């Protein structure tokens, strides 16, 4: 005989039991809230570690301070830089600063996966996956964490360069940074996927990351103008999304919104972002 009263065993009246409060969100609100939750968890470590933060902010300035003068001296004769023909420091900076900003974005976001490697090994990534967080929010939140300091770095670099003849066009430059953010999320998601594919083989992650990074950098004309390079390099650079990013960013930082290259930059950013997220989500579903 089973009566209703006989079932009160497990959860008797005296048991201090709070009814489970199941929260299930959906739609764009969830996407944003989840991304924010992931981002704020990730950024906590950066904010808690001010020395690394300050050092990472100074690093590109040191780089710029050492590279800039050399570039003015060596390529002052004009190699495709906008201020060709007896370039001044200001012209060189105008050409070089956007490149440096793209570079630190690429360096930073391509390392998104490196923190993940550790979290996959210890098990905290698995704990995060077991929560109802959207998979794309996990990817985007982590990539944004790498991008946020770069935004600050970019602004600092641009401001520091102003006294040396660099002209800042705030609105186009801001658009440039937003596009870079979109691009960075894509790179971050690809790095995430690479980390998941590498799992406990850390060498594999670093090997692939490093051996892709430098060819991409050089074949984008970021540090050295490609116009002087052989034809195959110029052809290869046309297949490199980074080239479009660098070209577009240079125009935007020069205050120019009318050039079709800006549109190509936006296309490259969005395409990289979409490919990154699709590949990233597939990797997330497959590996764990």
């Amino acid at each position, binding site marked *: 005989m089973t009566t209703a009263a006989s079932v009160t065993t497990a959860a008797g009246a005296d048991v201090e039991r709070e009814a489970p409060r199941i929260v299930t969100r959906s739609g764009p609100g969830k996407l944003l809230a989840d991304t924010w*939750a992931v981002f704020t968890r990730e950024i906590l470590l950066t904010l808690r570690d001010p020395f690394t933060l300050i050092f990472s902010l100074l690093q590109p300035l040191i780089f710029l301070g050492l590279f800039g003068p050399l570039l003015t001296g060596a390529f002052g004769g004009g190699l495709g830089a906008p201020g060709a023909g007896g370039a001044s420091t200001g012209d060189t900076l105008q050409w070089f600063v956007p490149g440096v900003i793209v570079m630190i974005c690429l360096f930073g976001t391509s390392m998104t996966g490196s923190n993940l490697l550790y979290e996959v090994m210890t098990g905290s990534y698995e704990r995060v996956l077991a*929560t*109802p967080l959207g998979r794309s929010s996990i990817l985007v939140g982590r990539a944004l964490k790498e991008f946020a300091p770069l935004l600050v770095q970019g602004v600092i670099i641009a401001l520091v360069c102003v006294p040396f003849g660099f002209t800042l066009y705030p609105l186009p430059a801001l658009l440039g940074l937003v596009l870079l953010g979109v691009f960075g999320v894509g790179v971050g998601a690809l790095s995430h996927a690479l980390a998941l594919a590498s799992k406990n083989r850390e060498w594999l992650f670093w090997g692939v990351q490093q051996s892709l990074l430098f060819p991409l950098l050089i074949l984008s004309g970021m540090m050295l103008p490609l116009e002087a390079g052989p034809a195959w390099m110029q052809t290869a650079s046309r297949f490199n999304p980074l080239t479009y990013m660098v070209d577009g960013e240079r125009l935007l930082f020069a205050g120019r919104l009318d050039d079709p290259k800006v549109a190509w930059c936006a296309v490259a950013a969005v395409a990289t972002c979409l490919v990154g997220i699709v590949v990233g989500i597939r990797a997330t579903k497959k590996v764990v």
Partner: protein
Amino acid sequence: MPTEMIRARGLVRTFRRRKEVVEAVKGIDVDVAEGELVAFLGPNGAGKSTTLRMLTSLLAPTAGTAEVAGYDVVTHPEQVRARIGFIGQGNGGGFSYKVRDELHNQGRFYGLAPDVYRSRAATLIEALELGGLEKRSVQSLSGGQRRRLDVALGLMNHPPLLFLDEPTTGLDPHSRANLWEHIAAMRERYGMTIVLTTHYLDEADSMAERVVVIDHGEIVADAPPDLLKHEHADDVLTVGVASTDEDGVVAALRPDVVGGGEVDVTRRDGELRVVVRTAHGAERLPGVLEALRAAGLTVTSASGKQASLDDVFLNLTGRSLREEAAA
């Protein structure tokens, strides 16, 4: 009327590594009712974690279906995740994070409001003896403290169903016992259904109300531990008799006396050593001694050993789980 928390049918998972195909789980059917505490017991590589990962929606089944907390794990993974807690084999807390921060982060991952996750975190810190460690980084905690934090993380959403994958592996005996006390206390407090995996026999035996024995990706037995031992293993009674009359001993221990058990008599140190293998050994022992005395035999010693889950595993698979765990 108990509701079903888990209903899995024909769960299969294969992994492909280069040309090699690993059949980690080969077709598991299991139902878990609300309020149960079930232990999946099996050696390393048996497929316990893979099964748990499928039930928690972390891994897609190659075949089969599973409904967990009322939702299909494949079609509604987020609904499942919102209703369960999962404590994996590793450590859930990010090593560089502080204890309280991670609990708050976890609350936000479940979409809880700040006042809710703050008070829950405070309650769990207190309940799981993490007081004073709130601002310590996870990596500075001891193994036992980390595991308690994992339990706290798994309970932030107050799940009606909690999964724990090898919760006590790697802990010293004291921390193991301590963790178990906490799990039992949390179960009382929140009235949860619990599914856990272990390869510790004693743990499955003493803590679980139901043991699901898994070997090579298949369930080989599923019952309360006592029932498993009665059905699949015998208790062993050892009696010393001051006599050399082997036939007399065998005649005295009629099948009805030993409950149809097996009787084995050997000579040792000038007397007889009688070994009886039977179910319900403790209840049989007085009758055995009585029968021997009635036959005029003098009993010099008597002892009994209860069947263990290792005996069960040995009888079911031909291998000893204890030896595999040690290997």
